[in-house]
């Protein structure tokens, strides 16, 4: 079908492998995402904490630099599980903002413009569509979370030596699992909200609300009933517990409460975090609900019964 010929001709060339086609969606989506200078600037800003992290790791192993700064190694933050957990959580917060900026229009603009039949009339399944759309966020968030964190872990291992690497290998898995669970959750929730709400601003508000309102509600339960069960309804608290569990900093008992009753007896209530398995179960439940909604909404045409 050359331009000068202007006739209809079938395509007889090679085809791309089917498994790779879901990656077409993020490749084309990034052209739109990075058109916004404001977003690009924010995305660059996301790498600043990583740079600080790298500098801290470097300083720990560079006597000359410490000498110039007139600082002792002991005065620096130790490079341990808490160090990596802090930066993983910090990057997680940046990832949340990126998801808030990129996530809302991800499916909604296709629904608004009836684009789904155009995708699904091709050798491209609904699952590939969902995975493709999800990978827009997953790839983007990976570049600011677990990939650089893992590289920094390798940098620390390189500078500290093989023994440190072998002893702390579990930290690498904590970094990867903690970050991947968080960005998967963000991508899934963003996509689900995007499939339900067609307007970008409302969708952004809904995503924000999904994270904030249950947190407030959970805290309310905690305060009124003197418990920590409320943390199970807060996505933030769930992720905090899971992250602590992965980095080995999880503490079951987070405080005690003394209550004096009218007859003068004093009762001590121990505030216990919900067990880790319950946090994982709730998280799994959220993912199942999101997938069920996506399976209902991502269709070429709604069937009017």
């Amino acid at each position: 079908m050359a331009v000068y010929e202007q006739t209809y001709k079938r395509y007889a060339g090679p085809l791309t492998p089917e498994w790779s086609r879901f990656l077409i969606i993020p490749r084309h989506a990034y052209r739109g995402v990075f058109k916004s200078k404001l977003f690009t600037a924010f995305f660059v800003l996301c790498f600043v904490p990583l740079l600080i992290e790298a500098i801290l790791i470097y300083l720990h192993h560079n006597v000359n630099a410490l000498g110039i700064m007139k600082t002792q190694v002991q005065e620096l933050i130790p490079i341990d599980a808490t160090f990596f957990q802090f930066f993983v959580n910090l990057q997680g917060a940046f990832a949340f903002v990126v998801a808030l900026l990129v996530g809302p229009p991800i499916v909604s603009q296709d629904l608004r413009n009836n684009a789904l039949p155009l995708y699904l009339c091709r050798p491209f399944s609904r699952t590939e569509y969902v995975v493709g759309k999800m990978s827009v966020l997953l790839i983007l968030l990976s570049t600011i979370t677990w990939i650089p964190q893992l590289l920094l872990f390798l940098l620390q291992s390189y500078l500290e030596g093989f023994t440190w690497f072998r002893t702390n290998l579990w930290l690498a898995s904590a970094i990867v699992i903690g970050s991947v669970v968080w960005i998967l959750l963000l991508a899934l929730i963003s996509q689900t909200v995007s499939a339900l709400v067609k307007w970008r601003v409302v969708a952004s508000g809904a995503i924000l609300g999904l994270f904030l309102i249950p947190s407030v509600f959970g805290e309310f339960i905690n305060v009124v009933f003197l418990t920590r069960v409320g943390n199970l309804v807060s996505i933030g608290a769930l992720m905090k517990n899971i992250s602590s569990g992965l980095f080995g900093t999880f503490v079951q008992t987070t405080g005690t409460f003394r209550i004096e009753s009218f007859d003068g007896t004093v009762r001590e209530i121990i505030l216990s975090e919900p067990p880790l398995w319950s946090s994982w179960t709730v998280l799994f439940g959220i993912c199942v609900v999101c997938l069920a909604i996506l399976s209902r909404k991502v269709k070429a045409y709604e069937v009017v019964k």
Partner: protein
Amino acid sequence: MALPATAQQELIKDLPLTDPAVIDLLGLSVTFGARPILKGLRGDLRGKAIGLLGPNGAGKTTLIHTLLGFYEPSAGTAQIFGHDIVDQAKQIRALVGYMPERDAFIAKMSAVHFVRLMGELSGLPPEAALERAHEALFYVGLGEARYRKLETYSLGMKQLAKLAQAIVHGPKLLFLDEPTNGLDPPARLRMIKLIREIRDSGEAHIVLSSHLLLDVEECCDEILILREGQIAVYCNLEEERKSNRKFLMLETRGDQTKFVQAIKELGCEYAITGDHRLKIVLQGGVEVRDLYQLAARERVQLRRLSYKRDSLEDIFLKAMENGYGGL
């Protein structure tokens, strides 16, 4: 109630069987909730360009969507080029192009970006998709506007962009759902011309769903008329026009009672369509000359005599009046 399988097969038995079936309907039924939409459709469609006709709610769009795998059949199935629509949906989608009825595009994209993306999703490598996107847009007449955002396109341009995305990967079968919807006359003519060109290229079969009989008449060689989810007519348009469907429209003066009686004795079917107006179907062996002789004998003046071939409108209206299979 679904038309019996044998009766539906009867409808298509006269069609030439030289080409393999493009679409084979094997008792295809689709139900939305408790509402049956398609009722046991049977038959194999072989035309180069098949017109899909029917009143609103007859099931035209549902048939296309089911063939594309958007809806699950509640009973029966269908095959496209021998591939089952349920089990081999992906293979089928690699062979077909689809131009939806409603506005459909991806926001914030230029036409060339949009068509390229659609090409890539069909399996074309990025370079080939880009090249063919340019070609397809030139082909449909959007060459000069291909870098403009789709949101800025007029309705006619959007229709052409939809056609471009449907043909970018060079499909073997093209589903066009109301392609001339909302187009002004010049744009409609352009669209019809493109569809005919694709048909005449011999590279793709076309299924054209339309309310506009003229569009179907101009583009299609076969028609499938649906009525209440069943096949009312499936025929080759040209064959149908030729075969014993030559009408004579007569306008007479004088007492035509004896003249009409004489026509009946000749064995011709006739219908009195108004005062001094007759519609006659000429039977084999009866010539126009015989009518003149009859008129002279019965002292009836023939003021006007014209041929009227059975138009698609006649076929359609008869299908709607007579019910399933009636022609």
